[in-house]
């Protein structure tokens, strides 16, 4: 197990290094100098040069990369070109919306998908199965931001149960959760549909295994067999999908934040793009990719804990 963890850790670090080089290189080949962009059309060459020096743009590329990368390790993301504030602070503030939103959505999606998938698999071919499969087919076809708009129309504009957007802050956690509810439901819908399908097919696979027949033969009831044997084994593929979905949730949150005017990471990125504040774009993208790589690493490890057979491979 230790050796497996170590080899996964190695590839984790490699991925992070390569990802950071790719992101840095991509952003650095941008046409247009941030310094001249910030100062406008009529700036004097020496003012631009001075600002370039102040922003650290005058040193060679590889030095800037090292500076940026070592900064990231210590939690220093650099300074925003436009706001002149530490990016780490800006990100931390926004993360308090984006991260709870992603976790909220992941929880909702799991809470919907598990019962739906189990119901569909245990009553295969029944009306319940057919309707779960029908709903999931629809769920994956609906763009989450459109679903969000429809919910705003119904629950915010017509019924007035929720506000149509904005975020009241975490002073009152209940109000904050309420403001995140519609966005989380919108994000959860397609994910829950995918997860329910995976749950169903994974459970159908394990239910036809020999050990399930053995369990039934030794006198366990259907329910006992399901909970003790079938479900536990079906969790392995389900876990992988949950890990993968995290990346889609982070990305999905970027779009959903725009529907609900939530001041999260997504809005930060779009502001930064329009102001050509590239170092902010760079850092947020790196943070998102970092999160995805870490979550996938955690899933790999969890996977190996649940299923010892996997430790040998790779």
């Amino acid at each position, binding site marked *: 197990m230790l050796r497996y963890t170590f080899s996964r850790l190695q590839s984790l670090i490699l991925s992070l290094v390569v*990802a950071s080089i790719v992101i840095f290189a991509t952003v650095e080949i941008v046409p247009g100098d941030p310094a001249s962009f910030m100062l406008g059309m009529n700036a004097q060459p020496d003012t631009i040069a001075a600002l370039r020096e102040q922003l650290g743009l005058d040193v060679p590329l590889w030095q800037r990369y090292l500076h940026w990368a070592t900064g990231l390790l210590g939690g220093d993301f650099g300074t925003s070109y436009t706001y002149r504030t530490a990016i780490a602070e800006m990100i931390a503030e926004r993360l308090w919306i984006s991260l709870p939103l992603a976790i909220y959505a992941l929880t909702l999606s799991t809470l919907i998908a598990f019962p739906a998938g189990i119901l569909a698999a245990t009553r295969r071919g029944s009306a319940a199965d057919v309707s779960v499969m029908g709903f999931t087919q629809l769920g994956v076809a609906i*763009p989450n931001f459109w679903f969000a708009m429809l919910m705003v129309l119904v629950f915010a504009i017509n019924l007035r149960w929720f506000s149509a957007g904005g975020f009241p802050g975490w002073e009152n956690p209940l109000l904050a959760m309420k403001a995140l509810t519609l966005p989380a439901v919108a994000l959860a819908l397609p994910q829950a549909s995918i997860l329910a399908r995976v749950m169903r097919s994974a459970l159908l696979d394990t239910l036809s295994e020999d050990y399930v027949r053995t369990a039934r033969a030794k006198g366990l009831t259907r329910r006992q067999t399901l909970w003790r044997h079938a479900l536990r084994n079906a969790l392995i593929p389900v876990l992988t999908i949950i890990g993968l979905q995290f990346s889609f949730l982070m990305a999905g949150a970027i779009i959903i934040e*725009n529907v609900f005017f939530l001041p999260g990471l997504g809005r930060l990125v779009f502001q930064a793009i329009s102001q050509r504040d590239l170092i902010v774009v760079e850092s947020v993208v790196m943070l998102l990719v970092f999160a995805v790589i870490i979550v996938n690493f955690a899933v790999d490890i969890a996977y190996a804990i649940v299923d010892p057979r996997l430790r040998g491979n790779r």
Partner: protein
Amino acid sequence: MKALLTNRNFAIGLLLTSVFVAGALISFLWTPHDTSGVDIANKLKKPLSEGYLLGTDHFGRDILSMIMVGARTSIAVAFVAVGIGIVIGVPLGLAAAASKGSLMDEVIMRSNDLVFAFPSLVIAILITAIFGPSAVNAIIAIGIFNVPVFARLTRGAALSLWQRDYVLSAQVAGKGPARISFEHILPNVTNLLIVQGTIQFSLGILAEAGLSYVGLGAQPPIPSWGRMLAESQTMISFAPHMALLPGLAIVFTVLGLNLMGDGLRDIFDPRIRREKR
């Protein structure tokens, strides 16, 4: 062909998809109204108004015409993005399988993992931040994400095909790995590629809609479903049809493609048809 049309999923999916493909093709020759002009006198007409089957938007543009022209954007972006995925991903997958365990295999698969760590929207944000938003950049962003999907699928399927007797006899006959890959492996993974292509196509349509909704896709004046939705948002309380109709267009197209994909999978693999459904 008969097997295709008697499969219910495939038939319904094909019907739904054809409606939108036909709409997109017809729009090159004819649309009920011009979509580039502004006609304030006829703005915000409800659906089923005279002369405007699906109503008009806040500029008086005919929504049916907009959806037809928008279908062009969605289908073109998703189609080219799938094309990029296949043209780059399939040869990579074949090469990785042919050289299983080699450095090349390792490098190809590791780079795939890396691309997977970037959700397509994040790639799009990076590209847009650099080159500015456009339909072409949306295609590149979605296309890059398709590459590892096809590379993995091809490698996985090709690995098991390399164990077959006919590949062994081709090797004995002196054919090189490249020739075997294209003559014997590729034809046998085509079915899988078609099914996956359909699924990626539908994901591409969703991704394009999302990107143009946040302004990173096709730019005005090119109509796109995502931007129609973005524009409708402030008017949703008094003109809900502006938000409903382009959304339904996306849902039906994606649903159609997914049903086609499911149908094709059942048809190509009768084993699954009997066991799983």
